[in-house]
């Protein structure tokens, strides 16, 4: 298939555009503007190739998305899916569940992206969606536990203590850390995960969690304090 030549305003002049079959193959068919057949020749020629798109920053991709080309959402998803999946994995510690939740987060972002106003960075915005989704999910789980008369938190603490009581060489550190996180209340858990695992700054966490900076400091401190007590045998060993 003959591909159109690159336009001068795009930097990768030496490489042919990759729009067309390859570029469109991943595009969801229901999106309104994914079909280039409705585009004018000028629009087709102005559309950058995959190589170019993959090197663009988030804001540029969002601008293109908001301009009607929803194809570029793939680049945003592929760029951030690992962080979002890890965030959800740290919060829920359930590998099988992470994919479903991550998909829901990206669907939500896809629906909200046309209204994105560039007031925050895309990834903190995406984190906020993920955190809100996590809060909803944790709340639902709490309700389910209430109606099933289970006390899951007590179960986690019991499990943690059981695992900590074995010989140090038999301990699975990663599992213990995960259980320790699971034993924390959700607001402390999310705060410490964002800080220590995802490496967000206090300001970013305040933005993601939509709370004051002082609250973030307090939550992180409380979370660490609680974790320190919960994992004390492990820390003494280290």
């Amino acid at each position: 298939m003959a591909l159109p030549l690159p336009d001068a305003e795009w930097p990768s002049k030496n490489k042919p555009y990759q729009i067309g079959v390859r570029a469109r193959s991943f595009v969801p068919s229901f999106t309104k503007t994914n079909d280039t057949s409705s585009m004018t020749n000028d629009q087709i020629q102005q559309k950058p190739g995959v190589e170019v798109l993959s090197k663009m920053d988030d804001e540029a991709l969002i601008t293109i998305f908001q301009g009607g080309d929803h194809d570029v959402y793939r680049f945003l998803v592929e760029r951030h899916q690992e962080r979002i999946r890890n965030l959800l994995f740290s919060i829920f510690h359930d590998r099988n569940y992470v994919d479903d939740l991550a998909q829901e987060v990206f669907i939500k972002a896809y629906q909200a992206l046309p209204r994105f106003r560039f007031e925050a960075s895309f990834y903190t915005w995406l984190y906020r969606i993920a955190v809100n989704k996590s809060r909803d999910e944790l709340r639902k789980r709490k309700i389910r536990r209430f109606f099933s008369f289970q006390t899951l938190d007590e179960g986690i603490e019991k499990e943690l203590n059981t695992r900590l009581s074995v010989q140090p060489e038999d301990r699975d550190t990663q599992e213990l850390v995960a259980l320790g996180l699971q034993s924390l209340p959700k607001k402390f858990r999310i705060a410490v995960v964002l800080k220590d695992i995802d490496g967000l700054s206090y300001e970013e966490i305040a933005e993601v969690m939509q709370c004051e900076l002082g609250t973030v400091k307090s939550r992180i401190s409380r979370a660490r304090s609680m974790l320190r007590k919960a994992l004390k045998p492990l820390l003494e060993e280290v």
Partner: protein
Amino acid sequence: MKKINEKQMDQLLSQYIDGRLTENELQKVESLLSQDMSAQRRLKELKQLKDLLISKTKLTPDIGFWTRFSDVLEQPKKDENNFLPFKRKFVPVMSAAAAVVAVVVVILVFQNRIQLLNYFTEKSQVVKEVYEKNRLQGQLLPLFSKVDKDRALQFSLFGTLPFDDNSKAELRVDEQSKKGYRIEVGKDLKNKTKPITFDHFLAEVKPTSKQKQLIDSLLELTSRRIESSVLIGENDVVAIAPDFPNINKMMVTNIAACLEPNQRIQLERLLEANDAPYTISVQSGSVISDDHIFQSIPQSPRDNRFVIITPDTMMYSQLYIDFDSLRKQMEENFIAFKLRREEMLKRMMGKEFQRMQRNVPYSQPVQSFGNEELFNVEINVPAEEIDQQQMHVLIQPRIRKRIIKTTTPNHSIEMRVLSDTTSKDLSR
């Protein structure tokens, strides 16, 4: 230096390892760490904890994530199909509210269950009453003008009552046992009895003028009784007083009581020739020639009781109808407005009809079966036995030439209504 509590210490140390302390706070923490061994231990543990968290296992990049995600994006979202009148986030609240309301309703219903049950029973009874009243009102008509002297005589002697002028449809009463009756209503040309007129009767029996006058009065009274015992309506609705067959029985004995023995023989011949349901004992009983004889005519219908029979149902009921008033109004209006008799009767019956009581305490019909053209109903009614002492002349059921096939149990009435005969013929 002012002593700080554990919580404050943890917060300071936490921010210390993150490098978030101000100059003053930093000095404070360093001073604390140089003096306090526990603070040093805490700091060490916090650092270890942070290292553990940083080194926590990460998920490897999922290269198939987009492929799966794009499939999900193409599917219509279930969340968009929210049929609820409120947002999905309110579902738990609304569910809880609905549950509370349901519990309250259940408690209220339980507390007032007797009143509610009574209320609904009463209402359903009222609805039934209204329905049945509307259905029957103005439809069931007495046999005014259709029961003349000839027909009264016909019924008195032979238990048959023609409904229409051509005598195609008739009602037939036939005693099959001491306690049971058969009543046929309908058109039956094969078994149709030959009509006997009053003149024919006079010619055969040859009564004296006094006897004739007495029998004439008896037949007049019989007409009234028949009129108030049988109501016929459209759609094959028939209402008959349960003790109606007794009129036939008592009239045979009363007419015989008016006659001399030799006249009774003539009467018996007439009865036999026409296959009457009863045979008279010629020699029994004295001749009665006074008004005393009228006292033995049964008051019909007793307690306003009727058996209402439709092709679908059969029920006992008390129907209050002021026949005397109705008859009077009929005569007046007929002269005044010259309306068609049937129309006028319908109008007046709509006003006069009053259902007194539903469910007269008789046992319910035991059997009901039939087809489009003919249906039979077997019902049990209380014994309306006539005291043998009341019979001036003894009579007994005749062994008849024309035996009507029957499976009627003792003490029952069988109604056979041939559809499309009674009402249509009547309304002509």
